[in-house]
């Protein structure tokens, strides 16, 4: 038994909910966040669509964040705002704020550091380097928090949810969104966002197209768009130009794990998420992870369930609970984009979250003796199965399989 605090790194929804769950177990909880106001990315997501499952009410991002922060406060979570975590070593959390650098000796740590956006460089879009190329999330912050339009004539590359949401936001605030361009044959974002963000405003969506050139020396003056073939190479003779002053990039989110790296937690090179076991503990003893830092969630409501589990387990760990060793690796049969957790114990039911690589109809997902059929599986949607302990019959590995007999 120890009275060392559970330290939560990051005060987005994952951090707030993990903190609340840990405090409910009686732990002394400190939540560290770099911003002045807790809520993380939710504060800039002023659209509705949050909380239907968790709060049984359709909320905007800031509303969800406010409720989550209020619950944490009620449960006695101590907030350390405007404080950045520099590193985690063992269970010592080094933080910096206006008062200096200090170390917190934690009983357990939960990493909820969220995700970052894939930038232009990682995409390698050719062309010049003018002002006016922004990631969609930065544009979201500029419009919704700061109150500035980044541009007036806008092209969006990538049909991720943030890009779609921003197409509508920018249109409503008076900018002209000329096109959303997606290299894949299917949109990256949810179907509902195509309807209510693009179709509602007559914004064209170009599937299987990409931006092949950016023009403009000082500020963006235009982009060239072309159709792509199955190998994503531009098809000759299909290109056209759009005059615009802004290009927004909505081409994916990557788990943000600089702090996990300082702790020495193993990172999955494919997804950039932390490798955790069924208790959401990383490869470093007593350091847990959840939320978008683990794998990018579509829905804050799903994330809430995961975060609550991480917070609870961290509190149990700090109180001296010893978890059953997780020695069975969970293996992806290749049909899945990513699978969490990486290891299970086979002694308790385990929640396995996954995304499929390709759309599936009527496919079954199985592990050991367990199997569940899904009417639809989409690469842009995370799903989960809860596998009972006795289904893990093979103690050497648990292979997650996709069986599509249709």
């Amino acid at each position: 038994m120890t009275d060392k605090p559970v330290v939560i790194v990051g005060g987005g929804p994952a951090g707030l909910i993990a903190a609340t769950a840990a405090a409910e177990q009686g732990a002394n909880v400190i939540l560290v966040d770099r911003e002045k106001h807790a809520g993380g990315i939710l504060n800039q997501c002023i659209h509705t669509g949050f909380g239907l499952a968790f709060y049984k009410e359709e909320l905007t991002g800031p509303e969800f964040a406010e409720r989550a922060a209020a619950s944490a406060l009620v449960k006695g979570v101590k907030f350390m705002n405007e404080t950045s975590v520099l590193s985690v070593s063992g269970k010592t959390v080094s933080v910096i704020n206006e008062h200096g650098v200090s170390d917190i000796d934690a009983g357990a740590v939960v990493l909820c550091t969220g995700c970052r956006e894939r930038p232009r460089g990682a995409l390698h879009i050719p062309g010049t380097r003018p002002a006016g190329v922004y990631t969609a999330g930065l544009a979201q912050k500029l419009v919704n928090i700061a109150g500035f339009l980044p541009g007036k004539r806008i092209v969006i590359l990538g049909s991720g949810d943030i890009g779609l949401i921003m197409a509508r936001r920018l249109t409503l605030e008076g900018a002209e969104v000329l096109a959303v361009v997606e290299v894949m044959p299917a949109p990256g974002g949810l179907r509902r966002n195509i309807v209510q963000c693009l179709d509602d405003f007559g914004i064209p969506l170009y599937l299987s197209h990409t931006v092949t050139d950016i023009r403009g020396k000082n500020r963006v003056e235009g982009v060239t768009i072309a159709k792509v073939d199955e190998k994503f190479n531009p098809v000759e003779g299909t290109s056209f130009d759009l005059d615009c002053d802004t290009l927004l990039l909505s081409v994916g989110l990557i788990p943000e794990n600089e702090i996990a790296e300082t702790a020495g937690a193993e990172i999955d090179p494919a997804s950039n998420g932390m490798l955790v076991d069924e208790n959401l503990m990383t490869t470093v003893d007593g350091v847990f992870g959840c939320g978008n830092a683990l794998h990018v969630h579509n829905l804050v409501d799903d994330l809430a369930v995961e975060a609550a589990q991480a917070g609870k387990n961290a509190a149990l760990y700090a109180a001296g609970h010893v978890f059953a060793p997780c020695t069975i690796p969970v293996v992806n049969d290749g049909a899945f984009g990513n699978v969490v957790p990486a290891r299970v114990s086979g002694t308790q039911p385990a929640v396995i979250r996954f995304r499929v690589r390709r759309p599936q109809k009527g496919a079954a997902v199985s592990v050991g003796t367990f199997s569940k059929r899904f009417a639809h599986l989409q690469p842009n949607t995370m799903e989960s199965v809860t596998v009972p302990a006795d289904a893990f019959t093979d103690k050497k590995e648990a292979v997650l399989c996709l069986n599509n007999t249709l």
Partner: protein
Amino acid sequence: MKKLYDIVIIGAGIAGSAIARELSRYDLKIALLEKEADAAFGVSKANSGIVHAGFHSAPGMVKSRLCVRGNYLYGELKDELDLPFERKGELMIARGAEDEEKLEFFLKQGNQLGVPDLKIVRGEELRRLEPQLSDEITAALYAPSAGVINPYETVYRFVQNAMQNGVEFFPDSEVVAVAEGIVETTEQTFETKYIINAAGLNAAKIAEMAGLHTFDIKPRKGQEYLLDRKASALVNHVIFPLPSKTSKGILVIPTLDGTVMIGPSAEDGRDDDTTTNDVFDAILASTRTIIPSITPKLLISAFAGVRPVATGDDFIIGPTGVKGFINVAGIQSPGLTAAPAIAEAVVAILKKNGDLLLNKKSDFIAYVPRHPKARTMGKEDLSRSVALDPHFGKLVCRCEHVSEAEIRQAVREGASTLDGIKLRTRAGMGRCQGGFCTYRILEIMAEELGVPMTELTKKGANSALLAKDLKNDR
């Protein structure tokens, strides 16, 4: 109103700024003019950042001599100005006997030029230096004196120290006319005894303004690709293939920032800053023949720079037919390396002319420590810095650990654009490329500069970052 100067330097790249710093030792009235919003926005911003050992070009060329000398001088400057410079060493690689003969040639050439400590390494010794090297590589010419430097930070250190020693710096001042003893910018007219033409890609244009038609500048573009810090485990030295006629080839460069850079290409006649897929593919393929474990997934950013190549393929440094007009032109690679030696050469020219009194100042400030950076400070130093300035306690750029204090310092030092902040502090240069921190940086800039956010630019004129203020614009 006209102003009277001893020396006007045109162009605040590595050459112009090194000259300004060197001349600031003397009791002279000096102006440094730059057409862009900040120093280091020209060629000196976009290059490989290597301080070459100097075995590459033939003895007898100006650039060969100045390269070796420049390399030596950076050792001294590092101590004086706390320059971001580290002698990591260069390896020029060979595959098989035929290539190895060429290494012998460069070894001999380097020795002749006075490059220190050159030797050929093989087998075990080579693998120890560079464990990830492709198996096909049999030997390498090793030059331990070579190093990597942060080129733009070096320019800023030169400019800042020159200003501390009395040099006046004029950004946003494009030279539009030049005559004997007169330099006219878009802003004002300077009367001066000497004019130093260090205008990079525009050096021929400036010379023509003065009535000189003795050389041409042709652009030679180079694309460079930056890889994530993760790649730094793969390389320890700057690695070269055997050179071609126009370039030193595609290099693998461990930068000072802990990232790895691959490139540059050599594209004659191109003077734009676009990057292209075909060139990236070629650079990557070539890199993988050296370090096979480098993959395209590591890519975080790309840029292009343009070398100013003068007629004759050498530097053009010296007095001209126009009295007091000195050319520092055609400063192509290895111009970054040679810059401190170029500055020495300019002083020698002035001394030889004899009509300017070159009295050393008694109060010259030679030693300047760099401003502390949260990223490289230990916990205790960081705590001390926060106690002195609480802004150190606020990390604005989370990827590169840049504090609010550093951003404010950069603005006070002259950064007036987002790119200027980025080059001075690295804020926005990390994994997220500014996705998280850009907004906060803009807020701090607006506050420090006392201008509305909508007036802030990426890199000066016509590069405004924001189109409309929803709260205040109608």
